[in-house]
């Protein structure tokens, strides 16, 4: 397995180049690029500018592990407004194009958003239709769409079997699961998600979670690896069992208050322990 971390973790005020240097120095193999979340990679970023990002990544001795985005929280494919849905599809298409240019084969999509306003049945069907539409586009580009399990925040596809049914309904070999082992909270167990989805997993986000805390105000449920309630030996065993040998991508919500670069080193060391299996 290989280690990666998101460019949205690069401390504010740092340049992309400075961030890449830190990521390499901390021991990562690659970097996850977040469309729309960082100044150097926006929807307005041109193809040639994306090619330049790739050159910078490669000059730093890294590769791009995958292309993610948080834009679908604001512009979901499950919106009631057709204009918003069109924009959401456009974001995924741009992710696919960018992935091709950046030389990676996976993107992350937050596929639907259940709210008090937009109920589950609507979100489900629109999400299936959107992924059915995008699957062939991804396939033609040699890219896989990984739908992320943002269980609590999306209030959508809350169990691994539900997610399995969703992927069956989409019915595309180019659409799978971008698993976040920290997002499952107390609605289940990451190791069971890994076992059930196995080869459908495109990438894995790693972070730990305090299952008993719950969101309240600005308090986060997420924490650094091995500090929370995830059963990491079971997760590691499940990865072995399904033969997952792909990217582990660090996604830490809680940031260090001081010595911001230290989190990169600490997280990389924890990921090494996870990969080694010495837990």
């Amino acid at each position: 397995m290989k280690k990666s971390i998101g460019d949205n973790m690069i401390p504010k005020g740092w340049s992309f180049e400075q961030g890449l240097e830190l990521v390499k120095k901390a021991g990562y193999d690659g970097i996850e690029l977040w469309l729309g979340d960082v100044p150097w990679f926006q929807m307005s970023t041109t193809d040639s500018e994306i090619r330049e990002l790739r050159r910078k990544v490669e000059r730093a001795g890294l590769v791009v592990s995958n292309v993610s985005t948080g834009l679908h929280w604001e512009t979901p494919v499950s919106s009631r407004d057709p204009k918003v849905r069109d924009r959401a599809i456009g974001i995924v298409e741009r992710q696919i194009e960018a992935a091709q240019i950046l030389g990676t084969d996976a993107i992350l999509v937050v596929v639907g958003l259940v709210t008090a306003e937009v109920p589950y049945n609507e979100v489900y069907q629109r999400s299936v239709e959107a992924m059915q539409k995008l699957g062939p586009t991804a396939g033609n580009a040699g890219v896989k769409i990984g739908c992320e399990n943002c269980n609590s925040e999306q209030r959508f596809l809350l169990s691994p079997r539900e997610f399995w049914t969703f992927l069956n309904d989409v019915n595309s070999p180019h659409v799978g699961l971008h698993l976040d082992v920290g997002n499952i909270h107390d609605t289940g167990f990451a190791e069971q998600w890994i076992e059930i989805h196995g080869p459908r997993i495109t990438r894995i986000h790693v972070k730990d979670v305090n299952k008993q805390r719950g969101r309240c105000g600005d308090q986060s449920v997420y924490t650094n690896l091995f500090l929370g309630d995830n059963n990491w030996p079971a997760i590691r065993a499940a990865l072995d069992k399904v033969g997952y040998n792909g990217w582990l991508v660090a996604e830490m919500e809680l940031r260090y208050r001081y010595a911001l670069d230290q989190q990169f080193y600490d997280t990389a060391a924890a990921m090494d322990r996870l990969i080694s299996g010495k837990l």
Partner: protein
Amino acid sequence: MRIRVSRRHFLSTAVGAGAGLASVARGRCFGIASRSPAVLPQGHLDCVLVDLADGCRLRESLAGYEAALSRTHCRFLRAVPRQMPPAPVVIVPGCAGLAPDVAEIFRSSAEAGALVLVESGAAYAELPEFEAHRVALDLHFGLKLEAPVDLWSDGRGEESALARHAEGRRAEAGRSHVPYVDYNWPIAAKVRDFSRIVPLCNVVWAALNGEPIGWAQGRPMAARQSFGRGKLVFLGSPLGPALRYGDREAERWLNALLV
């Protein structure tokens, strides 16, 4: 029941197309939008589902009506307005753009005895298109529309979901919005809202030969109005999506309208 007979009588006498035709299966769509009446399958139609093409702002509403009609015993045809055959019920989903000649087709259908259901999708249109929609409905049907209202503008929609995500706030805090539209005709029904409505102005309904039949958050947004031998039903809150996503009350309401 009397309405149904009356509409069928209209159908059989107004135009030869529906008369003396072979029996056909119910719950079946007979056409595609571009097919002309001359090549329609021979059979009695209960309903025409109008595809306004670019004038339909909510394609999923059209799909919702089509799916719901397919589940009934109704024999229906999907057609473009300028080629629609006569039928006792005419449904116009997601209407935003409404050319004058098309509006006249709908008005003539109502005057000839049809029930014409115009569902507004203009709350999802850009402002100039909405304004044209408002003028057209006033000019051709005497309906006075207010500007669209976002029922979820108190900040509990998608945008606020993002904010909650970013802020880590609990989604359930302080929720009070009741997400339903209430109808009292043709049956009482409670149907999920579709975020935005086009409310009707307060008018002297008796002077318009009509009355409101639906409300959202206390605002009238649906009405029926008599025209000649038929009537116009206006919905300012899209019903088609609710039909598509399994709202049983919406389906019951439509079925009652078709009888």
